[in-house]
């Protein structure tokens, strides 16, 4: 029998049992769609994180006390404002060192209050990070030196407590202390559904007094060129270790953060894909099951075909093609559903989705293989049926 003929016969058999074929396919459809969607979400998360870290600015080294490990509890900081000078001398530019001491506080304008991150910073933040001011001015060195009570608000904070009123020159109360608004930070948007414009920046000196602390949480240094990043990283740590004998300090670069997060997210994507693959496997078992039923139901037909001259491989091919068709058509529908599902998730939820070219290709290949793998057993059974027995069956 020609292969084209076997296709025609298989297609006819699938059409004859439309509902059953559709239901059988459903398992494969769901499995493939799940693989495509979950891989898209995993890749989307990775892409998002990469974008975020890169949007910080370039050639940034973050200096923190203790050993830097993702998920580790932060060490109590002994870094102080004096270290800005120290690190500035290491870099050769004091303007390339930003500081941060942060705390969650209530910020209010009259009755309207919002709880946000209040970040004590120095004047170098817009220089080190990509964090321009949309309107007004940023904190100056004089503000830091004189511990002036001025604040630069994120756009969401403005919207929450001022609404449409222009906040510039007005007063806000931060943890009960009055600050004058001198600027509004440029809009940054959100990532993973988290608004990145809910920040308030105040001079670090004012923040230390407000929070009742002497420390600073972290220093950020901008290397002049990308090839300076790695040597500078070591020099910064060495300088701090020199000053604070017996203490640990870490300097992490963007590529290190990306590397760590990237590994975690790759693993996450892999796990998600593996879970989805299980459902594909279950779909394959469903195909196998239905094909066995189909072989049993059509035993007489098989007997007849054999009596008329069908060889074992003709019958085997017919049933194998049926199983593969179920899986391949199911796989194609699943890819369509997975791609549109990913786009839908990306558009209606904060979760980003990136459809990589390989996940539909992989899903399709796997579903075809599933068809062959799970189709072989029923098809062999059909091929081996004894024609005498088969013709006699009900």
């Amino acid at each position, binding site marked *: 029998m020609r292969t084209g003929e076997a296709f025609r016969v298989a297609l006819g058999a699938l059409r004859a049992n439309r509902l059953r074929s559709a239901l059988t396919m459903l398992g494969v459809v769901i499995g493939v769609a799940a693989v495509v969607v979950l891989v898209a979400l995993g890749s989307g998360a990775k892409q998002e994180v990469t974008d975020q870290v890169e949007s910080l600015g370039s050639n940034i080294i973050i200096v923190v006390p203790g050993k830097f490990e993702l998920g580790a509890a932060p060490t109590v900081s002994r870094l102080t404002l004096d270290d800005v000078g120290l690190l500035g001398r290491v870099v050769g530019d004091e303007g390339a060192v930003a500081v941060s001491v942060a705390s969650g506080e209530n910020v209010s304008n009259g009755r309207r209050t919002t709880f946000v991150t209040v970040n004590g910073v120095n004047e170098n933040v817009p220089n080190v990070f990509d964090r321009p001011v949309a309107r007004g001015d940023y904190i100056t060195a004089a503000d830091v030196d004189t511990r002036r009570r001025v604040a630069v608000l994120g756009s969401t904070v403005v919207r929450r407590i001022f609404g449409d009123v222009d906040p510039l020159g007005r007063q806000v109360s931060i943890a009960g202390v009055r600050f004058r608004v001198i600027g509004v930070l440029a809009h940054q948007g959100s990532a993973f559904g988290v608004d990145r414009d809910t920040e308030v920046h105040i001079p670090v000196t004012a923040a230390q007094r407000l929070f009742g602390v002497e420390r600073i949480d972290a220093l950020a240094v901008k290397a002049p060129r990308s090839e300076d990043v790695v040597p500078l990283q070591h020099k910064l740590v060495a300088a701090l270790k020199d000053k604070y004998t017996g203490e640990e300090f870490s300097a992490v670069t963007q590529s290190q953060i990306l590397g760590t997060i990237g590994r975690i997210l790759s693993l996450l994507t892999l796990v998600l894909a593996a879970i989805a693959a299980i459902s594909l496997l279950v779909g394959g078992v469903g195909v196998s099951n239905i094909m066995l039923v189909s072989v049993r139901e059509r035993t007489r037909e098989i007997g007849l075909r054999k009596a008329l001259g069908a060889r*074992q491989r003709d019958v085997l091919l017919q049933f194998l093609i049926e199983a593969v068709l179920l899986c391949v058509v199911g796989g194609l529908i699943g890819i369509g559903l997975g791609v549109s599902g990913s786009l839908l998730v990306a558009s209606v939820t904060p979760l980003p989705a990136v459809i990589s070219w390989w996940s539909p290709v992989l899903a399709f290949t796997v579903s075809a293989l599933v068809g062959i793998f799970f189709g072989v057993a029923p098809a062999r059974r059909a091929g081996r049926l004894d024609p005498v027995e088969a013709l006699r069956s009900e």
Partner: protein
Amino acid sequence: MTVEVRAGPAVEAVDVRRSYQLDGVTVEALRGVSMRVDPGEYVAVVGPSGSGKSTLMHLMGCLDRPTSGTLRVGGRDVATLGDAELATLRNRTIGFVFQSFQLLGRTSALDNVSLPLVYRGVRSAERRDRAAAALEAVGLGQRLGHRPSQLSGGEQQRVAIARALVGEPSLLLADEPTGNLDTASGAEVLALLGGLVEDRGVAVVVVTHDREVAERASRRVDVRDGLLV
């Protein structure tokens, strides 16, 4: 090749035995049968149920192999053939007509009849022509697109006969061909089978326990307890 096959006997059995293992017990269905059917012969195999006549038909139809003895179908020793070769032999030399018609549902008469040609690798245009001619020959030229469910029992059995003939076999095996038919349609089918022998020189073997059917044959073979009597 065709000429050679037609020249020799269509089927020749020499001391053919067939036994089955059923739950460890050996059941002898045929216990040494020797017979031959020549081209153009019309043979009736008669016997009560359980006599072994169905087994004999399956053997002659190459659906089964003898346990011992020699069975030649179309000049070829069945015992020496593999499954695939046996399938090809069935396809080329044998036409089957079953009591229950065994037509594929949801499939037109034309497609049912062309089925043996599908397994011979004949192209679809030629299949259609030959199947249409075969249906014409059994008087169903106007029913090509009908499905089995749209045909009467007699018509269905005529479709089955057309299917058995389309591959131009040298041996036609009919197992109770009138068993599911009323008298009138049964007579039509039998007339058709009788005509085949005369017009085409095909060897016809009809398995039956119906005396009337058997009487139409030119020769009658009685089977009892796995032996010819």
